[in-house]
Every structure is written in structure tokens, then in C-alpha cells.
């Protein structure tokens, strides 16, 4: 009955110059492992699949942001192999524009939960996501200008990584700790430039029914 344990991060923003990009990422050891990767690139090409250590990842969503000429995607994997493995993302053709790549591992995690995606609008961009007990929230925000803040929940600035892929991507923003169940407001800001606000739920074990629940039932 706890929030997921945050694990290793691997992040990169560079031009793939190929119909795939493969970057080594080290998955932490532990129970109830989980891996998520956030991707943003030009909307001229598409994501087709992803693998980690050769295992197919789940394609959670992709969304085109035409106003920003961008395409975003999220892939996840439950119980990924531990240690250093190649995280490979495949495209429908060679990509000659920069790719924002942000992978994070977790342990003691209940997996992927809710997702809410909000297109471009004025700053501050604020929205809710309804989460279960002990979940974490991760936010990605894209704009034509550098992100100023990401707040999870609204009013609490959290660290994030800023990638410049011709558009500006704020990625990797994550809750400081697990949330109580319910609607949580999150916010991203820029200096008077429109921005998107995508948020996803990373579930704790309490919300998914972990092994401990099994033994309680027994």
C-alpha cells in the first residue's frame, strides 16, 4: 500500500537519422517493475513500435499536435528485464528531425493508469487527472517557448527536463509523492505562449491489487 518507487532515468534529445532509435536504459531490480518512455518528434513521421531488451512494449497512445507540428507517444512495459538493455523505438520511415526521449523505471508499481491529453492553449495551462490512491502523476508539455514551470499538484513546482527539438518539450515532471485518490489539478506555464498539457497516472500497488492483496484474501 504505497506509491511506486522511482527508478532510473535515461533521457536524450538528438536526431535519430534512421528508422529507429536505440538507447541503453538500466531497469532497477525489485518487484512489480514498470518502465515508461515518453517521445516527442516532428509530425512528419510516426511511431510504430518499441521494445526493451527485445520485449515488445505496450503502445499506450500517440497524439498529433498539428499546431506545434509535433507527434507525441507513450510506451510502457510491465515487469521489464532488469539491468542494462536496449530501449528501441521504431518509426515508419527515417527521422531526420530531433526526437525527445525520456525513459523512467519504477519498482513497487501498479502500472499505467489514467491519461488525459490537452492540446495547445494559453499559459498557464491547467487540468485535472483523476487518480487512485498512492498514484504518481507524470506531465509532458510542449510549446514554441521554453517551459517555465510544471506544477504537480498545481502550486507545487517539480523538476522537469527541457528538450529543444525545434519545439520545446518539458518532460519527466513527476509527483514528489503519491497522491490521495481523486481529481488532482496540474499546471504548466510558459511566458505568454500557448502550450499543451498531457498527464498520465503511474499507479501504486494499492490501486492495482498487488501480491499482498492476494495473501490477504487467502
Amino acid at each position, binding site marked *: 500500500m504505497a506509491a511506486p518507487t522511482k527508478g*532510473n*532515468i*535515461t*533521457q*536524450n*534529445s*538528438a*536526431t*535519430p*537519422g*534512421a*528508422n529507429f*532509435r*536505440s*538507447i*541503453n*536504459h*538500466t531497469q532497477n531490480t525489485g518487484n512489480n517493475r514498470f518502465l515508461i518512455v515518453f517521445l516527442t518528434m516532428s509530425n*512528419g513521421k510516426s511511431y510504430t513500435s518499441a521494445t526493451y531488451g527485445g520485449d515488445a512494449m505496450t503502445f499506450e497512445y500517440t497524439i498529433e499536435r498539428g499546431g506545434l507540428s509535433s507527434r507525441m507517444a507513450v510506451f510502457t512495459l510491465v515487469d521489464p528485464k532488469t539491468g*542494462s538493455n536496449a530501449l528501441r523505438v521504431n518509426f515508419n*520511415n*527515417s527521422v*531526420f*528531425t530531433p526526437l525527445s526521449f525520456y525513459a523512467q523505471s519504477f519498482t513497487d508499481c501498479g502500472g499505467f493508469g489514467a491519461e488525459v491529453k490537452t492540446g495547445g492553449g494559453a499559459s498557464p495551462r491547467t487540468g485535472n487527472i483523476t487518480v487512485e490512491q498512492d498514484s504518481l502523476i507524470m506531465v509532458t508539455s510542449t510549446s514554441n517557448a521554453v517551459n517555465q514551470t510544471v506544477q504537480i499538484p498545481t502550486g507545487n513546482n517539480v523538476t522537469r527536463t527541457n528538450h529543444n527539438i525545434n519545439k520545446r518539450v518539458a518532460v519527466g515532471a513527476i509527483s514528489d509523492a503519491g497522491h490521495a485518490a481523486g481529481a488532482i489539478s496540474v499546471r504548466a506555464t510558459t511566458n505568454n505562449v500557448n502550450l499543451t498539457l498531457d498527464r498520465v497516472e503511474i499507479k501504486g500497488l494499492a490501486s492495482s491489487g498487488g501480491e499482498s492483496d492476494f495473501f490477504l484474501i487467502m
Partner: protein
Amino acid sequence: MITVIEKIEEEGGQLKFTPVGFTQDQELINEINEAYDSGLGKFFGENRTKLEIGEITINAFFDVTPSVNEARTQQENTDGLRELKNINEL
């Protein structure tokens, strides 16, 4: 976080990235990425449309410059890589 230095070469008409070391020296990171930006980065910037429609290939760059380096991957583990402190070690 450490920064991984990757060697970039052409293989089968596509970029091939090979991690060759890591650094925590921001000056070395800047030096590597400035060289990339003025080389392969500039080539991409000037030829993106031609590359996408197949009018040219990345061989146009790599026939002249066999390899370049880039230092834009950050991670928390050294992953068995050696630490590089000088661009001459590449």
C-alpha cells in the same frame, strides 16, 4: 546523472550510435556537441527535406567525415563505460 558520449557512423544508409564513454565535464560535453552541431547537425539542418524525399542520403556526409560524436544522452548508471576527460581520448 552522467552524460554518455556516442560515436555516430553510417551503417546501411542509417545512423549507427555506439556508446564509447561517459563524462561529467560540462566543457567536454559542450565541445563535443558544438562539433556535432557544426558538422552533422548543420548537414541535417541544410538537407532535411532532401534526406526525407530521398534526393540525397547521409552518405553525402559520411563519405567525407567517417564518424562524429554526440553527448546528449543522460543517465544515472555508467553502464560499464569508461570516463573520458579529454576530447583527444575519443
